[in-house]
């Protein structure tokens, strides 16, 4: 098992950093870079939602944090002229801070009540973006410059995306590396005592408290990590599209983040990643069906959930080697 894990990461990195670009190069489908970048970023936001599921909370509010993260980065870049790569962690931290303030009261709620409040959060974030002067209302923030060079002591670590021949590839690589880092962190959380404590929360909060777990603190911690992931995903999206509007992330996106987790499997760290990939491509592939796209798409979702309530990763196909998690 010890040899398998790093091997798996290396294989994954090889696939996403070598095989995929090569395939795209050969086939000439350059548009796939944008699609796959989106999948990588969406799956980071979904990973956050997955973590809140892991402490037993249904989170339909990740869209709020992706929007906040997007605006935070956009404002810092355009108004203060900060380097995008600096605003990226800052956007995550701002989201984490906001989520602590919001989470302290609302994480006391459970089940459908928490879900409803988070659903409203996305809408509140959108309306706030419409109302505030700094977010420039419905016109949004446009013409956001490309990420500039990041260098330490004269050594270039990340080149200026604006001067690159193929910024799409650069965005793709940056997103994929971020995705791998986020999932590695998530894997580490789940497989350390932290994860066991989260599971104890999910299964029985009262018992958790009586064995000495500071449940309020742990809930807020998990929620802020979740929002951090939402924030960096949002910031990256905004940087790629070079614009952000109040409607950039809506309730639909929040619901999709949650669906990605459901579809991939709530019991598996890689669940939200697979879920995002399948949902995103599934939607695109059904494009040829025209007006029936949504009908067939949603019917398939319902069938999948009935057939595989524990997600795609619960299929025997994936579970052969990995019975003990």
């Amino acid at each position, binding site marked *: 098992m010890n040899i398998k894990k790093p091997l798996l990461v290396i294989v994954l990195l090889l696939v996403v950093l070598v095989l995929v670009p090569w395939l795209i190069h050969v086939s000439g489908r350059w548009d796939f870079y944008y699609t796959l970048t989106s999948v990588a970023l969406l799956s980071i936001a979904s990973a956050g939602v997955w973590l809140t599921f892991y402490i037993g909370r249904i989170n339909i509010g990740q869209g709020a944090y992706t929007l906040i993260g997007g605006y935070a980065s956009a404002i810092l870049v355009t108004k203060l002229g900060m380097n995008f790569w600096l605003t990226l962690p800052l956007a995550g931290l701002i989201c984490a801070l906001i989520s602590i303030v919001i989470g302290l009261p609302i994480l006391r709620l459970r089940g459908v009540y928490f879900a409803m409040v988070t659903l409203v959060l996305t809408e509140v974030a959108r309306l706030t973006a419409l109302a505030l002067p700094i977010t420039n209302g419905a016109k949004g923030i446009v013409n956001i410059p490309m990420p500039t060079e990041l260098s330490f002591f004269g050594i270039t670590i990340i080149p200026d995306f604006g001067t690159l021949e193929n910024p799409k590839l650069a965005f793709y690589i940056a997103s994929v590396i971020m995705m791998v880092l986020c999932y590695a*962190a998530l894997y*580490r*959380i789940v497989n*350390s*005592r*932290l994860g*066991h*404590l989260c*599971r*104890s929360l999910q*299964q*029985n909060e*009262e*018992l958790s*408290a*009586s*064995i*000495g*777990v*500071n*449940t*309020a603190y742990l809930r807020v*911690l998990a929620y802020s990590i979740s929002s951090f992931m939402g924030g960096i995903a949002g910031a990256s999206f905004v940087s790629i599209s070079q614009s952000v509007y109040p409607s950039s992330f809506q309730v639909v996106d929040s619901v999709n983040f949650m669906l990605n987790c459901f579809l991939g499997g709530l019991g598996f760290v890689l669940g939200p990643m697979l879920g995002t990939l399948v949902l995103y491509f599934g939607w695109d592939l059904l494009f040829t069906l025209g007006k029936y796209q949504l009908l067939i798409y949603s019917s398939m979702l319902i069938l999948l959930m009935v057939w595989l309530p524990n997600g795609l990763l619960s299929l025997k196909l994936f579970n052969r080697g990995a019975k003990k998690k």
Partner: protein
Amino acid sequence: MTAILEVDKLTRRFGGLVAVNNISFDVKQGEILSVIGPNGAGKSTLFKLISSFLSTSAGEVRFKGEKVSDLSPHVVARKGIVRTFQETTIFRSMTTRENIIIAHHLRSKASMAGYFWGSAQARRDEATFAKSADEIIQFLDMQGIADELASNLPQGNLRALGIAIGLATDPEILLLDEPFAGMNHDETMQMVDLVRSVQRERGVTVMLVEHDMPAVMKISDRIVVINFGEKIAEGTPAEIRSNDKVIEAYLGSEDDAIGI
């Protein structure tokens, strides 16, 4: 024997209802004390007040002279007062061993970041917990079900698991909520022996709330009887058996329930 826990004029109101009314008693170091009373007498409320799952309306609880009421449940647990629940309250999708290991959390010294990075302290903690969990499994004779999912366990084992979870926290006082409910006579007697051995061999002070009178009479060093939120009697099982107020409180329900 000195008092380890002092319940002092404890009162809790829910709106107009006084669930616990001015109750005072001491729990002595190393004893088994049962709280009995008819349904709705306020026993569970009393337990929740002691473990800080509820806040008090008046009065206080002192543990070794220090006030422990009106804190957070996890703070009280960290001081050494640990409450176990009825059988449904375990971590259902963990195995027996995982349940016991996670319950060692009270004793962990590593920080949250330490767990994440796998610091030396975190690894030391895990090793200690695993070893201690094995000891508890041995002590409670649970080797056969150690790797079984808790949701697959029968009632008797679940109850024992509840106690194992309590033991893992290394408590000074263990609060048991109806440990014999829904058990037949043999299972009850096994459980009585188990609780007795927890008290004798591990030096844990035990407080329990229970309906099963024969078991209470057999297991308790002392008994506190409450009715309508008030304490009506306190004493050894023999004293309680012959107490007029107790007989009156139980009269009309089942006379033989208290073994008269």
